[in-house]
Each structure stands twice: as structure tokens, then as C-alpha cells.
């Protein structure tokens, strides 16, 4: 930027400001009304009792205290945690595995990449509906195959309290693995070739190569992927509400489902907001912990 003479600075700043705000206007209005204000309002709604029809009533921390006695919330919380703890490592392992395979300079890489990525951009509704049918306890192809290979009593998948979560997790990993694979592929491409060449001269075996070069060099990608995955796992909802029609009990309650249920079916806006806030805080704390441990294992190479 060239520096204009001092006297003109103020008018220049003023006119810049006006131009800038003219450009910003369309977006800022929407941002203020539909993002910033709702964020602030979300904090306020936690402390009220409100069903929209009747006047708002301030209840202080009551909504939060209620959470301790509400086993619907507790079941949702543990189910969400279950989903997160199983699906995150599973997705990381399969995304890394696929990326490693694709990185071996194979022919048709573009084809494979497209195929693995395919489920990610497909609509969850369409995909969940198919999987629901694949999981059909008596007629579904998955159980046909299981019976074929000698499993006498294959699980009832979507109607079994025990198996419904593993079924949903498997389907979710299948759906999202391609996205994280692409991130890993980008990470792999950033590893300098010389490192491997030097290692080969030193006579390391493939496992050591993976363990002492690839894995540490990929740690920034793994860090990014795991942060993203945890955040997204806490938001799991679509596949649950689409697939869990008629599931016995509350095996499929997850946090977002419970928020949705409280807010838009029971119209308990205040209580639902409190649950949403707790969910947000939990995700925030987990993310902060992840960042705290970052320098313990993430290695930002400067090449």
C-alpha cells in the first residue's frame, strides 16, 4: 500500500470504510441476524422455560440440574460417546489404510479415489435407506451372506438393542471414509521422497518405514482428522433418525436426536437449548484437550 499524505488519511479511511461496509452489507446482515444473534440467544435460552405459546419464564440453572435426573439425556450422552469412541479410530484406521494403498503409485488411482469418495457426497437419506435394507434381519443380503459362511443366528441389526449401534457405526464409517482418505492422501503427498530414499539405504523394512517415517510425518493430518471426526461424531443425527424407525427402547438416542426431540416435538426450547449447550461445551473441552496433547505426538516438520 502506498502511503498517502497525512491530511488525506482520514478521508481515505472514511471512504474506505463506507466502501467496505457496502461490500459487506449483504453478508453482514445475514451474519448478524442468523448467526451471531442466535449464538448469543442460545446462551440466554438455556436459562428459561419456554414453549413458544406461553410467555418465557426465567428458571436459572434448573434446566441444567434437570439433566442429571433425565435418563433420556444420559442415554443419549453415552450413546453419542459410544458412537464417537468406536467410529473415530475405525474411520482413521480405514482412511489411512486406503490412502496408503492408493499412494503405492497404482494405475487407475483416479478411479479408485472416485469410488471411495462416492458415498461421502451421496445423500444420507438414500444411503441410509439402502443400508437399512441390506441390514434386514431375515431377507437382507448381509445376513444371507453371514448364514452362508456358517453364522447360525446372525444379528437382527436394526431391531436389536445390542446390534443397532454397531450397524450404524459401520455404515457411517463406510460413508465418511473417503473424505478423510483424501485428506490423508494430501498429507502423504507432502512427505519428502528423500526421507524414504535415505531409509532404504539404511536398510529399514517396510513396517519400520511406515512406523518411523510415514506415521510421524502424517501426524498433522491425523491430528486434523481426529479433531474433525470427534466434532462430527457428536453431531451424528441423520442416519439415526432415518434408520432407527421402530428400534426398541432408546438404543438409538443420541444428543442431537434428543435436542431435536425436545425442541421440535415437545417444544421445550429452553431445555433443548441447555442440552445443546452441554453438547457444545463437551465438544469444546474435548477439542481443547486434543490441542493440549498436540505437541506430545504431532510433529510439524519444516521441510
Amino acid at each position: 500500500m502506498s502511503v498517502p499524505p497525512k491530511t488525506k488519511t482520514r478521508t481515505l479511511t472514511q471512504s474506505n470504510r463506507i466502501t467496505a461496509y457496502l461490500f459487506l452489507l449483504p453478508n453482514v446482515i445475514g451474519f448478524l441476524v442468523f448467526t451471531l444473534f442466535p449464538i448469543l440467544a442460545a446462551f440466554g435460552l438455556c436459562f428459561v422455560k419456554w414453549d413458544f405459546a406461553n410467555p418465557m419464564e426465567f428458571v436459572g440453572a434448573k434446566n441444567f440440574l434437570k439433566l442429571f435426573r433425565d435418563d433420556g439425556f444420559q442415554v443419549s450422552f453415552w450413546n453419542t460417546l459410544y458412537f464417537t469412541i468406536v467410529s473415530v479410530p475405525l474411520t482413521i484406521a480405514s482412511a489411512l489404510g486406503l490412502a496408503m494403498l492408493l499412494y503405492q503409485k497404482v494405475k487407475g488411482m483416479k478411479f479408485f479415489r472416485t469410488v471411495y469418495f462416492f458415498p461421502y457426497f451421496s445423500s444420507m437419506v438414500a444411503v441410509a435407506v439402502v443400508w437399512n435394507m441390506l441390514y434386514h434381519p431375515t431377507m437382507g443380503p448381509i445376513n444371507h451372506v453371514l448364514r452362508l459362511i456358517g453364522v447360525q443366528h446372525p444379528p437382527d441389526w436394526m431391531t436389536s438393542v445390542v446390534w443397532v449401534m454397531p450397524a450404524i457405526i459401520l455404515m457411517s464409517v463406510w460413508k465418511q471414509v473417503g473424505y478423510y482418505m483424501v485428506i490423508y492422501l494430501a498429507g502423504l503427498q507432502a512427505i519428502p521422497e528423500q526421507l524414504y530414499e535415505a531409509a532404504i539405504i539404511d536398510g529399514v523394512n517396510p513396517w519400520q518405514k511406515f512406523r518411523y517415517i510415514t506415521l510421524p510425518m502424517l501426524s498433522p493430518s491425523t491430528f486434523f482428522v481426529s479433531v474433525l471426526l470427534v466434532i462430527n461424531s457428536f453431531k451424528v443425527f441423520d442416519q439415526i433418525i432415518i434408520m432407527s424407525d421402530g428400534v426398541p427402547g432408546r438404543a438409538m438416542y443420541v444428543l442431537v436426536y434428543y435436542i431435536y426431540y425436545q425442541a421440535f416435538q415437545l417444544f421445550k426450547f429452553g431445555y433443548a437449548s441447555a442440552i445443546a449447550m452441554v453438547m457444545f461445551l463437551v465438544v469444546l473441552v474435548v477439542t481443547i484437550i486434543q490441542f493440549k496433547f498436540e505437541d506430545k505426538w504431532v510433529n510439524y516438520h519444516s521441510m
Partner: protein
Amino acid sequence: MVLEGARARQSKAFFQKLLIYALLLCGTIIMILPFLWMISASLKPNNDVFEFPIRWIPKVIQWDNYVDIWKKIDFLLYYKNTIWLTLVVMFNSLVTSSLAAYAFAKIPFPERKALFLLYVMTMAVPFQVIMIPQFVILKNLGLNDTLWSLVLLQSFSPLGVFLIRQAFMGIPNELSESARIDGLSEFGIYSRIMLPLSKPALSTFAIFQFVFVWNDFLGPLIYLTSDRNKTIQLGIRKFITQYGVEYGLVMAASVCALLPVIVMYVIFQKSFIQGIATTGLKG
């Protein structure tokens, strides 16, 4: 001896390649089979859908499924709604985001840093936290149960501002400075220099928005209650509860819901993957 070693290495490398391809192929089958099954089932009469062993090419190809879905429920209306919603949101968010991005990238004004930081920070707040206040606002505006509610919610994407600003930042300031000296207005610089030069970023964001809006489920689920406003994603679900046994129809509807996204993806595959890879690296 040496020759034998070389040969052993060669065959080892060969088997390694073979193993890699075998694994890749397994992965391919797992990823693609549900879709093939979907297509195959969409062309079968109801009784044949669960046939086992699976007959991939149906005995009788029932094209009727693809005709019936438009008759049994108002699928055409859902389709139109979705197309309208997707295009309007895509257009709006491209315009609002790129205008804001221009101010953030190229016009120095006092509150620039603070305001941009606010934008970036709100990106970290999950939609689920603010969906209740958003719903209340839109209800007060009298817009719930209209497609406009979703248009308003999705047209002002902080992510879009962020992505497009990155692209604008990459365009050298000398370019805009010299255009300014030549008497081009700020809007002229934005529309005639910045936009054409950042087509890759704009199209990446456009596809992201397309896929997001087209596939969105929770948004329509909350806002669109009456039948005439529903989108395809809700439409399919309605199929399941109403015609739960007619699997062939559900599958045909699912294929129709996927089609536009697949076409988009095939056309813009490169920038889509690029977009993910670069956002991934930035973390």
C-alpha cells in the same frame, strides 16, 4: 546368485502389487456394492428385491418403478422445490460471500481484522447449538414452513467468505491498485478482476453448497412441515413410512435423489477433491 536375487526381488514386487490391487478391489466392492444393489433393486418388482443369491440384472426389468414414484407421491414437486432451493442458495451465497470476501481481502478499513476474526470464530459453533434460536427468529418472521427460511439460513455462509477471501488474497494487490489508478471503481475491480481470477475457488464453494443443500436433511426436517414445501430428502423418507413395503419404489426414488449430485460430481470432481485436500492441509 545376483541374478537370482534380482529375480526374487522382482517376483516379490510383483506379488506386492498383486496384493495391493486385491485389497483395492475389495475396498471398491465394499464401497460400490450398496449402490449397485440400489440400482438393481430400483428396477425390480417388489417381490424380487430381496432375492438371494442376488440377481444383479433383474429377471423382469421394471421401469415402472421410475414412472410410479412421480405418480404415487408428489415427487416432481419435491424435485422442483429442491432444485429451486439449491440454485437460489448457491447463487445467493456466492454473491454475498464474494462481496464480503472482497472487502476483507482488498479494502483496508479499521474494523477489518476484528470483524473477520468474529466470522472465523463463529464457524466453530455447531449448527445444532444455534438451530433453536434460528427457528424462533424465522418463526417470528413468519417464514417457517417456507423454502425462504432455508434460503435465509444458508445464504450467508461464513465458510464461503473464508474460502473466497483466501482466493482473493492470492491475487496480487498491484493488480487492483493499477486498476484503481486507471479509474476502475471498486465494484468494477471486484467484478471484472477478482471474480474472473478466482473461478476455481468460486466453483469449489459452489459445489460444496450444491452438495450440502441438495443433501440437507435436518434443515428441511425442522422447517418444512407441509407437503407442498418438502424437498426430495424428506420425500424419500415419506415413501418409507407410507409405502414401507414397496422397496423397488424407495430405491428408484433414492436413485433419482442421487442423480444430480453424481452429475455435478463427475463434472467438477477435480476442484471438489482439491477443495477438501487444501482445507485438510490448512488444519
